[in-house]
């Protein structure tokens, strides 16, 4: 990112004073510099010890054959090898899990941002009870993930779930649908058989439900910052609501929507809890993060888990670079 760093007044003054002025033990700038680093040091220590160093260590672990039993042998000067990567890439289901992760991420991101946009537009104007409605819309986002996945599981259960019970009773389904444990659901439409990846779609629906409030919050905040005169002017020109939305609101919202897509994409790509709790990674929902967890806890194969995690991170970087390079010149311009 190229930004011109304008010298702030204080700095400029400092710079001018330095050559001529008498030498003092500490200039204001130096004092400020020191204080800044002191105040920030607890944060930096925590972040470096618990985040940065572990990340570097992951990279090292990924290139050493290590299991939990012999982890004491692992060091900076261990034996480096590509065996982990080879093992991970050639293990069954590697490519399909990458594909699943991508489908899951794109689907969840798109739906949650879309629903968030619809919700923000609907809840924009004032009405009685708006605060309460706004708060209840946020509930899926703030509630504990373990609790909400259980409610979904119970609601969708084929044996005693409400969804299937009502579906068979009122909607005329021939048999209960195993939403969370069925890989393929064959759906007949006008004589055509369409195969739906049922469990994956359900998990995507869950993600959209749980995270649309996140998009909603940001979009609503942005909508309320749109100057009223813009819409009034459009109204005077006789623009219909759909035209006002397309020509006035959407351009105003576009940077936030782009930012939300990137944020949600990054966060969903690595998401572990939701899929693990809903399906355990079965029935065609085996995303990469669940595989990392399995390498780690079922086989205690730390090297392979680290390699798999690196592949995940690399995949994320590749997608983001493609996105920033080709699809998002807009936000780069906005942020610079």
């Amino acid at each position, binding site marked *: 990112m190229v930004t011109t760093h304008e010298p*702030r007044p204080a700095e400029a003054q400092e710079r001018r004073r330095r050559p001529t002025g008498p030498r003092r033990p500490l200039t204001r700038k130096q004092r*400020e*510099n020191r*204080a*800044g*680093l002191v*105040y*920030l040091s*607890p*944060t930096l220590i*925590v*972040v470096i010890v618990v*985040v940065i160093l*572990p990340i570097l*260590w*992951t990279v090292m*672990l990924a290139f050493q054959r290590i299991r*939990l039993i012999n982890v004491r042998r*692992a060091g900076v000067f261990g034996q480096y090898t590509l065996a982990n990567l080879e093992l991970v890439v050639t293990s069954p289901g590697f490519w399909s899990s990458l594909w699943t992760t991508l489908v899951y991420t794109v689907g969840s991101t798109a739906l949650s941002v879309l629903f968030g946009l619809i*919700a923000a*537009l*609907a809840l924009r104007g004032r009405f009685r009870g708006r*605060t309460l*409605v*706004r*708060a209840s*819309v946020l509930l*899926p986002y*703030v*509630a*504990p*993930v*373990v*609790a*909400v996945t*259980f*409610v979904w*599981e*119970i*609601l969708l259960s084929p044996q*005693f779930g409400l969804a299937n019970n009502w579906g068979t*009773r009122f909607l005329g389904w021939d048999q209960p649908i195993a939403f969370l444990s069925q890989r393929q659901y064959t759906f007949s439409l006008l004589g055509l058989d369409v195969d739906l990846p049922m469990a994956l779609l359900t998990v995507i629906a869950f993600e959209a439900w749980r995270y649309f409030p996140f998009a909603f*919050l*940001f979009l609503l905040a*942005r909508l309320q910052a749109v100057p009223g005169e813009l819409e009034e002017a459009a109204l005077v020109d006789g*623009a*219909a*609501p759909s035209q006002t939305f397309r020509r006035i609101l959407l351009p105003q919202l576009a940077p936030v929507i782009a*930012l939300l897509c990137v944020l949600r994409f*990054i966060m969903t790509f*690595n998401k*572990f809890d939701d899929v693990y*709790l809903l399906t355990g990674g079965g029935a065609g929902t085996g995303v990469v993060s669940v595989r*990392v967890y399995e390498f*780690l*806890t079922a086989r205690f194969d*730390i090297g392979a888990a*680290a390699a798999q995690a690196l592949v*995940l991170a690399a995949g*994320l970087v590749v997608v983001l670079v493609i996105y920033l390079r080709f699809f998002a010149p807009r936000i780069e311009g906005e942020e610079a």
Partner: protein
Amino acid sequence: MDRYTFEKRLFGVLRWMVITVLVVVTLFPFCYMLLLSVRPIEEVLANPGGIWAGPSEWTIETYREVLTPADAGGQGFLRLLANSALVSAAATVLTLLVSIPGSYAVSRLRFTGRRQVHFLFLAVYLFPSILLAIPLFVLFTRLGLRGSLAGLTIVYIAQTVPVSIYMLRNYLSTIPESLEEAAAVDGYTRLQIIRKVVLPLAAPAVMANALYVFMIAWNEFLFALLFLVEDRADWTVSLGLAQLSGGIEVSKTVLMAGSVVLTLPIVIIFFAAERLLTEGLTAGADKG
């Protein structure tokens, strides 16, 4: 009817439909959770399609089973609630202790590497926690911290500090610097200024931040699962509930009672401080 009137009416109707659907879709699972948790299991099995059971049939047996200590035949959730509360409260207090001076430095002081620090926090915020899980799992095993609530607290601090600094920084930048300059003229040191001028002014943001960190720590699942699963006495409520579902003899009404116990503190906090929280979360969002 011209296009304007037509659309005005159409969207007027659609809007109320959307609002109704939103409220039902977001609230229904939580209401169902609550209603199921008080229904006797026999009644649920006899009538799986029903939602409502008369108040005369309601039972608190499920809650009794969830909350009684494990050695008395229950699920011992009181103990887990205490664990969760302890970890979340400790993480909240320590995160604030670290992030208040940190955010002050980032928003007020011009020091070398300020821009890089900003980038660093963004990267940490977006960094996948599953990647972090592996080295921390290994490291904490070696240090003997795995299986301790203290270890978990450290992880939560590291995960929440960047967000916390970001939120606080946005708020601090709205406080006029002239107030601090006035205090400095009066002879306050920098620490005194933070304590006596900045903190009182930033109290709402600090409060929102505390609640936010508390909620993240209370809801967290992955690290609790990785670190604490071996010793039941250390489980948090999230982990305890997840482990409960693995038990075959546990009925789903009991599961729902556990879910209510897990969710209720968050819902109470959230509704008590909704305004604070939504404003805190989106602070600075409209600048993008």
